């Protein structure tokens, strides 16, 4: 196993002033920016280091950040935008909030380095509207960084100009989808656009745009300072570096733990989060937010990396685990998830708009032990009609966990059919 004691984003979290510029700088903050801008690291060199780092997107999809940056056109007359996806809202996920509230300058420095690498002069940080403290701390961090000359014109005398602006969302999970986020940032309802064209070609205001997650960018300063290979070496094959792992639900010590990519799930749940909160054994875990199919308690000897979870018919997602104990009715839990996707469907595509509601209504029936015409096959068939038939991934995100629950807990779901009540919970 890799060294589990290395920390990056949480290393100085015990410093209550870390969110201020002086606090961040007292721990060497903005060293990455100085190294790049004053130490002669060209944008291409920064880009190379991020590629070498095997830094996979931390928003859930796991796309390598360095490769994404490479999709920008080599020559363009238009401005290039960096957009930070800080619309954290995938149920079960609470990691970007920590960075924005308690270590916001790591994000700001990461934005500046990314802008340098992709030759962008403007960055918008799209922060979920409910996260007021995050917004405040990011806005303060931007103001402090600007006053110090890290943001604005001719940064550190390098000739590099860059502006960073915070932008509040207003309550819509769908805006975490990059095309919906771009629409929202343009002052419109958050309804995803068809891809292609991808945002790297036609994004914000019709210009080339890179959309990265908060955590992804917050790791960039360390990568620039210490080298991409050093970051890659902290993680496992094809999954570079560290990650903020979350554990919530029925564990003793819910919270965030910064550990290498590829760390065993059992270690995270049992050693870090202290195992189950009481004597009731674990029943299952939703690995990375509500769109990820659940795993059984017997499946937690798995490495937390994108490939391993995929192999297990689930997803790593945002890396925030929701653990639940025996006695929890998985139909009821899934019903809550199905309710969420029905509520959050933007309504643009029929299979999602109608399918998420249809799915929720039938799972709700099952929850109360009603009979379903067509049995559990009805739920499978609704899922199959949504999957792959929508503009964005919200439809898939609604269908995949239900398929996962059916696969893992099929007997329990079948026992609900026509039972007249929930056979699991009293």
């Amino acid at each position: 196993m890799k060294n589990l004691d290395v920390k990056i984003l949480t290393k100085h979290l015990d410093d209550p002033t870390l969110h201020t510029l002086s606090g961040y700088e007292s721990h060497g903050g903005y060293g990455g920016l100085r190294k790049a801008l004053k130490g002669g690291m060209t944008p291409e060199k920064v880009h190379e280091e991020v590629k070498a780092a095997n830094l996979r997107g931390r928003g859930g999809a796991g796309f390598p950040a360095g490769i994404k940056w490479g999709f920008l056109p080599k020559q363009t007359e238009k401005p290039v935008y960096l957009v930070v996806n800080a619309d954290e809202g995938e149920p079960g996920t609470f990691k970007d909030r920590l960075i924005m509230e308690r270590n916001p300058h790591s994000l700001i420095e990461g934005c500046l380095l990314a802008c340098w690498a992709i030759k962008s002069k403007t960055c918008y940080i799209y922060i979920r509207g409910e996260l007021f403290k995050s917004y405040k701390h990011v806005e303060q961090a931007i103001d402090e960084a600007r006053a110090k000359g890290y943001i604005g014109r001719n940064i550190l005398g390098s000739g590099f100009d860059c502006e960073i602006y915070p932008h509040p969302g207003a309550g819509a999970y769908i805006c975490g989808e990059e095309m919906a986020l771009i629409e929202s940032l343009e002052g419109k309802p958050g309804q995803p656009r068809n891809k292609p064209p991808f945002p790297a070609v036609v994004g914000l205001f019709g210009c080339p745009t890179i959309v990265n997650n908060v955590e992804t960018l917050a790791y960039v300063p360390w990568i620039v300072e210490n080298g991409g290979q050093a970051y890659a070496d902290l993680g496992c094959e094809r999954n570079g570096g560290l990650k903020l792992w979350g554990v919530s639900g029925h564990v003793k010590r819910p919270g965030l733990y910064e550990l290498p990519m590829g760390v065993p799930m059992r270690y995270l749940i049992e050693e870090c989060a202290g195992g189950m909160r009481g004597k009731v054994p674990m029943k299952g875990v939703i690995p990375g937010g509500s769109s990820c199919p659940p795993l059984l308690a017997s499946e937690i000897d798995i490495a937390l990396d994108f490939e391993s979870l995929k192999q297990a018919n689930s997803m790593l997602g945002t890396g925030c685990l929701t653990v639940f104990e025996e006695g929890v009715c998985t139909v009821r839990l899934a019903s809550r998830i199905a309710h969420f996707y029905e509520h959050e469907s933007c309504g643009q595509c029929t299979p999602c708009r109608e399918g998420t509601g249809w799915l929720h209504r039938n799972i709700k029936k099952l929850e109360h032990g009603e009979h379903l015409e067509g049995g559990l096959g009805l739920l499978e068939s609704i899922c199959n009609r949504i999957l792959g038939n929508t503009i964005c991934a919200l439809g898939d995100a609604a269908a995949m966990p239900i398929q996962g629950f059916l696969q893992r807990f099929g007997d329990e779901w079948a026992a609900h059919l026509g039972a007249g009540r929930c056979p699991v919970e009293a």
Partner: protein
Amino acid sequence: MSLAFSENAQRRFDLIVGRYPNLQAALLPVLHLAQAEFGHVSPEVMDFVGHLLGVPPIKVQQVATFYTMYNLAPVGRFHVQVCTNIACYLTGGKEILCHLKQKLAVENKGTTADGVFTLEEVECLAACGTAPAIQVNDPHDPEWPIAYHENQTVASADALIERLRAKAGSNG
């Protein structure tokens, strides 16, 4: 047009619109600003914002009705929002919601007769590690108009409501 921003809000407006290459992009933050200023986003407020930004009323309405944080009708002084999504569901969010419904004698999205509280069940607040969580909006608090209360229990949520009631009574 009878509505107007206060001096402070106008300064904030100028700052916001300076961030974007066109005025429509400022629509979400300006609607937040208008809601803070006028209490809720009425059709009159939508017209006012549309006029300021040169955006047709229908486009303002599309945005104001798409996002959940814009209140299209008046809400109570304290907008109490209880998360019941997965982590909060597993740790007692539903029980807290039930208790507050009884305590305040309102249904979901209802406002108490005295206009002090609006209660609402909401989706994941990104506070799963400190579940269950309650978000309270208090437009009278200029520093922290949106506050999170985490690691809640039925008893602590009950006490929270009492504290807020006292605050409203003292006009704080």
